[in-house]
Protein backbone atom coordinates (compact mmCIF):
# COMPACT_ATOMS: atom_id res chain seq x y z
CA UNK A 1 0.00 0.00 0.00
CA UNK A 2 2.87 2.37 0.84
CA UNK A 3 4.39 1.83 -2.60
CA UNK A 4 1.07 2.63 -4.29
CA UNK A 5 0.86 6.00 -2.53
CA UNK A 6 4.51 6.75 -3.27
CA UNK A 7 3.95 6.06 -6.99
CA UNK A 8 0.72 8.11 -7.05
CA UNK A 9 2.44 10.91 -5.16
CA UNK A 10 5.42 10.96 -7.53
CA UNK A 11 3.20 10.95 -10.64
CA UNK A 12 1.06 13.76 -9.26
CA UNK A 13 4.14 15.78 -8.24
CA UNK A 14 5.77 15.38 -11.69
CA UNK A 15 2.50 16.36 -13.38
CA UNK A 16 2.27 19.43 -11.14
CA UNK A 17 5.81 20.50 -12.10
CA UNK A 18 5.07 20.00 -15.82
CA UNK A 19 1.83 21.97 -15.63
CA UNK A 20 3.44 24.78 -13.68
CA UNK A 21 5.88 25.56 -16.51
CA UNK A 22 3.28 25.78 -19.31
CA UNK A 23 0.54 28.43 -19.78
CA UNK A 24 -1.87 26.07 -18.04
CA UNK A 25 -0.06 26.69 -14.75
CA UNK A 26 -3.38 27.29 -12.98
CA UNK A 27 -4.06 23.59 -13.30
CA UNK A 28 -0.83 22.69 -11.43
CA UNK A 29 -2.57 23.30 -8.10
CA UNK A 30 -4.83 20.27 -8.55
CA UNK A 31 -2.11 17.57 -8.90
CA UNK A 32 0.04 19.46 -6.37
CA UNK A 33 -2.63 19.14 -3.68
CA UNK A 34 -3.14 15.47 -4.63
CA UNK A 35 0.65 14.88 -4.41
CA UNK A 36 0.66 16.41 -0.94
CA UNK A 37 -2.19 14.15 0.20
CA UNK A 38 -0.53 11.03 -1.25
CA UNK A 39 2.80 12.12 0.24
CA UNK A 40 1.34 12.54 3.72
CA UNK A 41 -0.35 9.12 3.53
CA UNK A 42 2.89 7.52 2.28
CA UNK A 43 4.80 9.26 5.09
CA UNK A 44 2.33 7.97 7.69
CA UNK A 45 2.61 4.41 6.32
CA UNK A 46 6.42 4.68 6.24
CA UNK A 47 6.51 5.87 9.84
CA UNK A 48 4.29 2.98 10.81
CA UNK A 49 6.43 0.37 9.09
CA UNK A 50 9.77 2.08 9.71
CA UNK A 51 10.61 2.07 5.97
CA UNK A 52 12.79 4.63 4.17
CA UNK A 53 11.26 8.08 3.61
CA UNK A 54 13.82 9.43 1.15
CA UNK A 55 11.61 9.14 -1.95
CA UNK A 56 8.72 10.79 -0.08
CA UNK A 57 10.91 13.82 0.49
CA UNK A 58 11.29 14.11 -3.30
CA UNK A 59 7.49 14.12 -3.64
CA UNK A 60 7.27 17.06 -1.23
CA UNK A 61 10.20 18.82 -2.88
CA UNK A 62 8.67 18.59 -6.37
CA UNK A 63 5.28 19.64 -5.03
CA UNK A 64 6.71 22.69 -3.30
CA UNK A 65 8.63 23.68 -6.45
CA UNK A 66 5.46 23.43 -8.57
CA UNK A 67 3.35 25.30 -6.02
CA UNK A 68 5.86 28.12 -5.61
CA UNK A 69 6.35 28.49 -9.38
CA UNK A 70 2.61 28.36 -10.17
CA UNK A 71 1.85 30.87 -7.40
CA UNK A 72 4.64 33.17 -8.63
CA UNK A 73 3.25 33.02 -12.18
CA UNK A 74 -0.29 33.69 -10.92
CA UNK A 75 0.83 36.84 -9.14
CA UNK A 76 3.54 38.21 -11.43
CA UNK A 77 2.52 36.95 -14.87
CA UNK A 78 2.61 39.58 -17.61
CA UNK A 79 -0.69 41.04 -18.80
CA UNK A 80 -2.37 39.02 -21.52
CA UNK A 81 -1.63 40.40 -24.95
CA UNK A 82 -2.73 39.52 -28.42
CA UNK A 83 -0.41 39.90 -31.39
CA UNK A 84 -2.66 41.02 -34.20
CA UNK A 85 -0.39 42.45 -36.92
CA UNK A 86 -1.10 39.72 -39.46
CA UNK A 87 -4.79 39.80 -38.60
CA UNK A 88 -4.89 43.57 -39.18
CA UNK A 89 -3.23 43.14 -42.57
CA UNK A 90 -5.75 40.48 -43.48
CA UNK A 91 -8.64 42.72 -42.36
CA UNK A 92 -7.51 45.55 -44.64
CA UNK A 93 -6.97 43.18 -47.56
CA UNK A 94 -10.35 41.53 -46.97
CA UNK A 95 -12.19 44.87 -46.84
CA UNK A 96 -10.72 45.97 -50.17
CA UNK A 97 -11.63 42.62 -51.70
CA UNK A 98 -15.17 42.96 -50.28
CA UNK A 99 -15.62 46.47 -51.74
CA UNK A 100 -14.65 45.15 -55.19
CA UNK A 101 -17.14 42.32 -54.74
CA UNK A 102 -19.90 44.66 -53.52
CA UNK A 103 -19.41 46.98 -56.51
CA UNK A 104 -20.49 44.10 -58.74
CA UNK A 105 -23.64 43.39 -56.74
CA UNK A 106 -27.04 44.92 -57.26
CA UNK A 107 -27.45 46.29 -53.77
CA UNK A 108 -29.45 49.40 -54.47
CA UNK A 109 -32.58 49.19 -52.40
CA UNK A 110 -34.86 51.10 -50.15
CA UNK A 111 -32.87 50.30 -47.05
CA UNK A 112 -29.47 51.38 -48.33
CA UNK A 113 -28.19 54.88 -47.85
CA UNK A 114 -27.22 56.08 -51.29
CA UNK A 115 -24.25 58.39 -51.37
CA UNK A 116 -24.87 61.84 -52.79
Amino acid at each position, binding site marked *: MRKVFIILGLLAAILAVLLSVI*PLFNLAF*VPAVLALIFGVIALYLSNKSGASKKIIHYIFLLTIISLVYATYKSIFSAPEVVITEELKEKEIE*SEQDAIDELEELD*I*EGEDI*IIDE
Partner: protein
Amino acid sequence: MHRITIVLIFLFSFLMNAQNNAVGTNEKLVFTASYNMSGILNNLAEVTMETSEVKTSKATLLRLKCTAATYSKWDHFFKIRDLYESYVSPTTLKPYLYKRDINEGSYFKAMKYTYNHKANTIKTLQQKKKKDGTLWDENKTITVQSKTKDIVTTLYSIRTFDFSNMSVGKSTELTIVFDREEIKAHITYLGKESLATVLGKKPCYKLSISTSKSDVLKGTNSNIIWLTADENKIPVFATFKIPVGNGELKLKSASGLRH
Protein backbone atom coordinates in the same frame (compact mmCIF):
# COMPACT_ATOMS: atom_id res chain seq x y z
CA MET B 1 -11.33 27.00 -30.67
CA HIS B 2 -13.24 26.38 -33.88
CA ARG B 3 -16.05 24.98 -31.73
CA ILE B 4 -15.86 27.95 -29.43
CA THR B 5 -16.23 30.24 -32.39
CA ILE B 6 -19.29 28.33 -33.53
CA VAL B 7 -20.68 28.56 -30.05
CA LEU B 8 -20.03 32.27 -30.01
CA ILE B 9 -22.09 32.54 -33.07
CA PHE B 10 -25.02 30.66 -31.59
CA LEU B 11 -24.81 32.46 -28.34
CA PHE B 12 -25.48 35.67 -30.17
CA SER B 13 -27.67 34.41 -32.93
CA PHE B 14 -31.13 35.81 -33.21
CA LEU B 15 -32.80 36.62 -36.49
CA MET B 16 -34.92 39.70 -36.64
CA ASN B 17 -35.95 41.92 -39.49
CA ALA B 18 -36.47 45.00 -37.38
CA GLN B 19 -34.94 48.43 -37.87
CA ASN B 20 -31.50 48.84 -36.42
CA ASN B 21 -31.56 51.33 -33.55
CA ALA B 22 -28.90 49.62 -31.45
CA VAL B 23 -25.78 49.01 -33.53
CA GLY B 24 -23.64 52.06 -34.22
CA THR B 25 -21.12 52.61 -37.01
CA ASN B 26 -17.93 52.79 -34.99
CA GLU B 27 -18.61 50.41 -32.19
CA LYS B 28 -15.95 48.17 -30.69
CA LEU B 29 -16.58 45.44 -28.15
CA VAL B 30 -13.71 43.37 -26.78
CA PHE B 31 -14.30 40.10 -24.93
CA THR B 32 -12.14 37.62 -23.08
CA ALA B 33 -12.90 34.00 -23.93
CA SER B 34 -12.18 31.57 -21.10
CA TYR B 35 -12.35 27.82 -21.03
CA ASN B 36 -13.07 25.77 -17.94
CA MET B 37 -10.47 23.07 -17.32
CA SER B 38 -10.95 20.94 -14.22
CA GLY B 39 -13.00 23.71 -12.62
CA ILE B 40 -10.38 26.39 -13.29
CA LEU B 41 -11.06 29.10 -15.85
CA ASN B 42 -8.20 29.87 -18.22
CA ASN B 43 -8.22 32.92 -20.47
CA LEU B 44 -7.62 31.63 -23.96
CA ALA B 45 -8.42 34.28 -26.50
CA GLU B 46 -9.61 37.77 -27.21
CA VAL B 47 -12.76 38.14 -29.25
CA THR B 48 -13.48 41.50 -30.87
CA MET B 49 -16.71 42.70 -32.45
CA GLU B 50 -16.30 45.87 -34.46
CA THR B 51 -18.44 47.89 -36.84
CA SER B 52 -17.47 50.44 -39.47
CA GLU B 53 -18.88 52.14 -42.55
CA VAL B 54 -17.93 50.85 -45.98
CA LYS B 55 -18.59 52.97 -49.05
CA THR B 56 -19.06 51.67 -52.55
CA SER B 57 -19.92 53.77 -55.60
CA LYS B 58 -23.61 52.91 -55.10
CA ALA B 59 -24.17 52.74 -51.37
CA THR B 60 -22.90 52.97 -47.85
CA LEU B 61 -22.93 49.68 -46.00
CA LEU B 62 -22.11 48.60 -42.49
CA ARG B 63 -19.22 46.24 -42.01
CA LEU B 64 -19.69 43.88 -39.09
CA LYS B 65 -16.41 42.32 -38.14
CA CYS B 66 -15.64 39.66 -35.56
CA THR B 67 -12.15 38.43 -34.82
CA ALA B 68 -10.79 35.80 -32.48
CA ALA B 69 -7.11 35.66 -31.56
CA THR B 70 -5.39 33.56 -28.92
CA TYR B 71 -3.35 35.32 -26.26
CA SER B 72 0.36 35.32 -27.13
CA LYS B 73 1.22 32.82 -24.40
CA TRP B 74 -0.89 30.22 -26.25
CA ASP B 75 0.44 30.96 -29.74
CA HIS B 76 3.22 28.36 -29.43
CA PHE B 77 0.66 25.68 -28.55
CA PHE B 78 -2.22 26.56 -30.86
CA LYS B 79 -2.37 29.84 -32.69
CA ILE B 80 -5.76 31.12 -33.75
CA ARG B 81 -6.43 34.08 -36.00
CA ASP B 82 -10.04 33.98 -37.18
CA LEU B 83 -11.83 36.70 -39.09
CA TYR B 84 -15.59 36.82 -39.68
CA GLU B 85 -17.20 39.67 -41.62
CA SER B 86 -20.58 40.61 -42.92
CA TYR B 87 -21.50 43.62 -45.08
CA VAL B 88 -25.04 44.69 -44.32
CA SER B 89 -27.57 47.45 -44.70
CA PRO B 90 -27.00 49.96 -41.87
CA THR B 91 -30.73 50.39 -41.30
CA THR B 92 -32.10 46.83 -41.43
CA LEU B 93 -28.91 44.75 -41.13
CA LYS B 94 -29.89 42.90 -44.31
CA PRO B 95 -26.74 41.01 -45.40
CA TYR B 96 -25.16 41.29 -48.85
CA LEU B 97 -21.78 39.69 -48.41
CA TYR B 98 -20.29 37.41 -45.77
CA LYS B 99 -16.69 36.35 -45.43
CA ARG B 100 -14.98 33.99 -43.06
CA ASP B 101 -11.27 33.32 -42.79
CA ILE B 102 -10.08 30.74 -40.33
CA ASN B 103 -6.46 30.16 -39.38
CA GLU B 104 -6.12 27.66 -36.56
CA GLY B 105 -2.61 26.19 -36.34
CA SER B 106 -2.01 24.54 -39.71
CA TYR B 107 -5.73 24.51 -40.55
CA PHE B 108 -7.01 27.09 -43.00
CA LYS B 109 -10.48 27.58 -44.35
CA ALA B 110 -12.16 30.51 -46.05
CA MET B 111 -15.80 30.94 -46.94
CA LYS B 112 -17.60 33.62 -48.91
CA TYR B 113 -21.37 34.03 -49.26
CA THR B 114 -22.89 36.39 -51.80
CA TYR B 115 -26.60 36.88 -51.20
CA ASN B 116 -29.26 37.02 -53.87
CA HIS B 117 -32.34 38.14 -51.93
CA LYS B 118 -34.64 38.10 -54.95
CA ALA B 119 -33.97 34.42 -55.70
CA ASN B 120 -33.42 33.40 -52.07
CA THR B 121 -30.09 31.88 -52.94
CA ILE B 122 -26.55 32.27 -51.70
CA LYS B 123 -23.55 31.86 -53.96
CA THR B 124 -20.81 30.31 -51.88
CA LEU B 125 -17.08 29.90 -52.34
CA GLN B 126 -15.15 27.67 -49.99
CA GLN B 127 -11.37 27.59 -49.92
CA LYS B 128 -9.29 25.01 -48.11
CA LYS B 129 -5.58 24.47 -47.97
CA LYS B 130 -4.19 21.29 -49.49
CA LYS B 131 -1.23 19.44 -47.99
CA ASP B 132 1.11 21.01 -50.54
CA GLY B 133 0.00 24.49 -49.43
CA THR B 134 -2.09 25.33 -52.49
CA LEU B 135 -5.70 26.38 -52.18
CA TRP B 136 -8.62 24.26 -53.25
CA ASP B 137 -11.75 26.18 -54.33
CA GLU B 138 -15.29 24.87 -54.23
CA ASN B 139 -18.19 26.88 -55.66
CA LYS B 140 -21.76 26.05 -54.73
CA THR B 141 -25.08 27.88 -54.85
CA ILE B 142 -27.53 27.04 -52.09
CA THR B 143 -31.23 27.81 -51.76
CA VAL B 144 -32.23 29.26 -48.40
CA GLN B 145 -35.30 30.60 -46.65
CA SER B 146 -35.97 34.31 -47.03
CA LYS B 147 -35.03 35.10 -43.41
CA THR B 148 -31.90 32.97 -43.25
CA LYS B 149 -28.84 34.97 -42.32
CA ASP B 150 -25.19 34.25 -41.73
CA ILE B 151 -23.79 34.01 -38.27
CA VAL B 152 -22.27 37.45 -38.02
CA THR B 153 -25.42 39.22 -39.15
CA THR B 154 -27.58 37.21 -36.76
CA LEU B 155 -25.07 37.97 -34.06
CA TYR B 156 -25.84 41.66 -34.45
CA SER B 157 -29.52 41.26 -35.38
CA ILE B 158 -30.32 40.01 -31.90
CA ARG B 159 -29.83 43.55 -30.70
CA THR B 160 -32.57 44.97 -32.88
CA PHE B 161 -35.24 42.97 -31.08
CA ASP B 162 -37.60 44.54 -28.57
CA PHE B 163 -37.10 42.46 -25.42
CA SER B 164 -38.93 44.93 -23.21
CA ASN B 165 -42.26 43.69 -24.59
CA MET B 166 -41.34 40.01 -24.59
CA SER B 167 -42.88 37.67 -22.05
CA VAL B 168 -40.62 35.45 -19.95
CA GLY B 169 -40.27 31.96 -21.42
CA LYS B 170 -41.04 33.04 -24.98
CA SER B 171 -39.03 31.07 -27.51
CA THR B 172 -38.21 32.09 -31.05
CA GLU B 173 -36.91 29.91 -33.85
CA LEU B 174 -34.14 31.22 -36.07
CA THR B 175 -32.47 29.91 -39.20
CA ILE B 176 -28.76 30.43 -39.59
CA VAL B 177 -26.58 29.42 -42.52
CA PHE B 178 -23.28 28.00 -41.39
CA ASP B 179 -20.86 25.89 -43.41
CA ARG B 180 -23.38 26.13 -46.27
CA GLU B 181 -26.07 24.43 -44.20
CA GLU B 182 -29.18 25.89 -42.62
CA ILE B 183 -29.33 25.34 -38.87
CA LYS B 184 -32.35 25.92 -36.62
CA ALA B 185 -31.70 27.70 -33.36
CA HIS B 186 -34.09 28.48 -30.52
CA ILE B 187 -33.73 31.56 -28.37
CA THR B 188 -35.69 31.69 -25.13
CA TYR B 189 -36.10 34.89 -23.17
CA LEU B 190 -35.49 34.12 -19.49
CA GLY B 191 -36.19 37.54 -18.00
CA LYS B 192 -34.11 40.36 -16.56
CA GLU B 193 -31.09 40.08 -14.28
CA SER B 194 -28.58 42.55 -12.88
CA LEU B 195 -24.96 41.83 -13.70
CA ALA B 196 -21.68 43.41 -12.59
CA THR B 197 -19.89 44.33 -15.82
CA VAL B 198 -16.96 46.43 -16.97
CA LEU B 199 -19.54 49.19 -17.58
CA GLY B 200 -20.77 48.97 -13.99
CA LYS B 201 -23.76 47.12 -12.60
CA LYS B 202 -26.24 46.75 -15.43
CA PRO B 203 -29.74 45.33 -15.73
CA CYS B 204 -29.56 42.70 -18.49
CA TYR B 205 -31.83 40.59 -20.67
CA LYS B 206 -31.10 36.92 -20.10
CA LEU B 207 -31.46 34.60 -23.09
CA SER B 208 -31.00 30.87 -23.50
CA ILE B 209 -29.83 29.38 -26.80
CA SER B 210 -30.21 25.86 -28.17
CA THR B 211 -29.71 24.42 -31.65
CA SER B 212 -31.01 21.59 -33.77
CA LYS B 213 -27.40 20.50 -34.23
CA SER B 214 -26.86 18.68 -30.94
CA ASP B 215 -23.12 18.30 -31.57
CA VAL B 216 -22.59 22.06 -31.34
CA LEU B 217 -24.24 23.18 -28.11
CA LYS B 218 -24.85 20.81 -25.21
CA GLY B 219 -27.31 20.82 -22.34
CA THR B 220 -30.45 22.78 -21.70
CA ASN B 221 -30.13 26.23 -20.23
CA SER B 222 -26.34 25.87 -20.24
CA ASN B 223 -25.84 28.32 -23.07
CA ILE B 224 -26.88 31.70 -21.79
CA ILE B 225 -26.22 35.22 -22.98
CA TRP B 226 -26.84 38.50 -21.16
CA LEU B 227 -27.53 41.70 -23.14
CA THR B 228 -27.68 45.09 -21.46
CA ALA B 229 -31.30 46.13 -20.96
CA ASP B 230 -30.78 49.53 -22.58
CA GLU B 231 -30.97 50.86 -26.11
CA ASN B 232 -27.55 49.48 -27.06
CA LYS B 233 -28.34 45.89 -25.99
CA ILE B 234 -24.69 44.92 -26.07
CA PRO B 235 -23.67 41.40 -25.03
CA VAL B 236 -21.80 41.58 -21.73
CA PHE B 237 -21.51 37.99 -20.61
CA ALA B 238 -22.15 34.52 -22.00
CA THR B 239 -21.71 30.98 -20.77
CA PHE B 240 -21.64 27.96 -23.03
CA LYS B 241 -21.37 24.22 -22.91
CA ILE B 242 -19.83 22.33 -25.82
CA PRO B 243 -18.88 18.65 -26.26
CA VAL B 244 -15.36 19.28 -24.95
CA GLY B 245 -16.30 21.28 -21.85
CA ASN B 246 -17.66 24.67 -20.97
CA GLY B 247 -16.51 28.23 -20.95
CA GLU B 248 -17.49 31.84 -20.84
CA LEU B 249 -17.18 35.16 -22.62
CA LYS B 250 -16.83 38.35 -20.67
CA LEU B 251 -16.91 41.91 -21.94
CA LYS B 252 -13.52 43.58 -21.42
CA SER B 253 -14.12 46.95 -23.03
CA ALA B 254 -16.74 48.78 -25.05
CA SER B 255 -16.38 51.94 -27.12
CA GLY B 256 -18.28 53.87 -29.80
CA LEU B 257 -21.69 52.80 -28.53
CA ARG B 258 -24.65 54.33 -30.33
CA HIS B 259 -26.52 55.49 -27.19
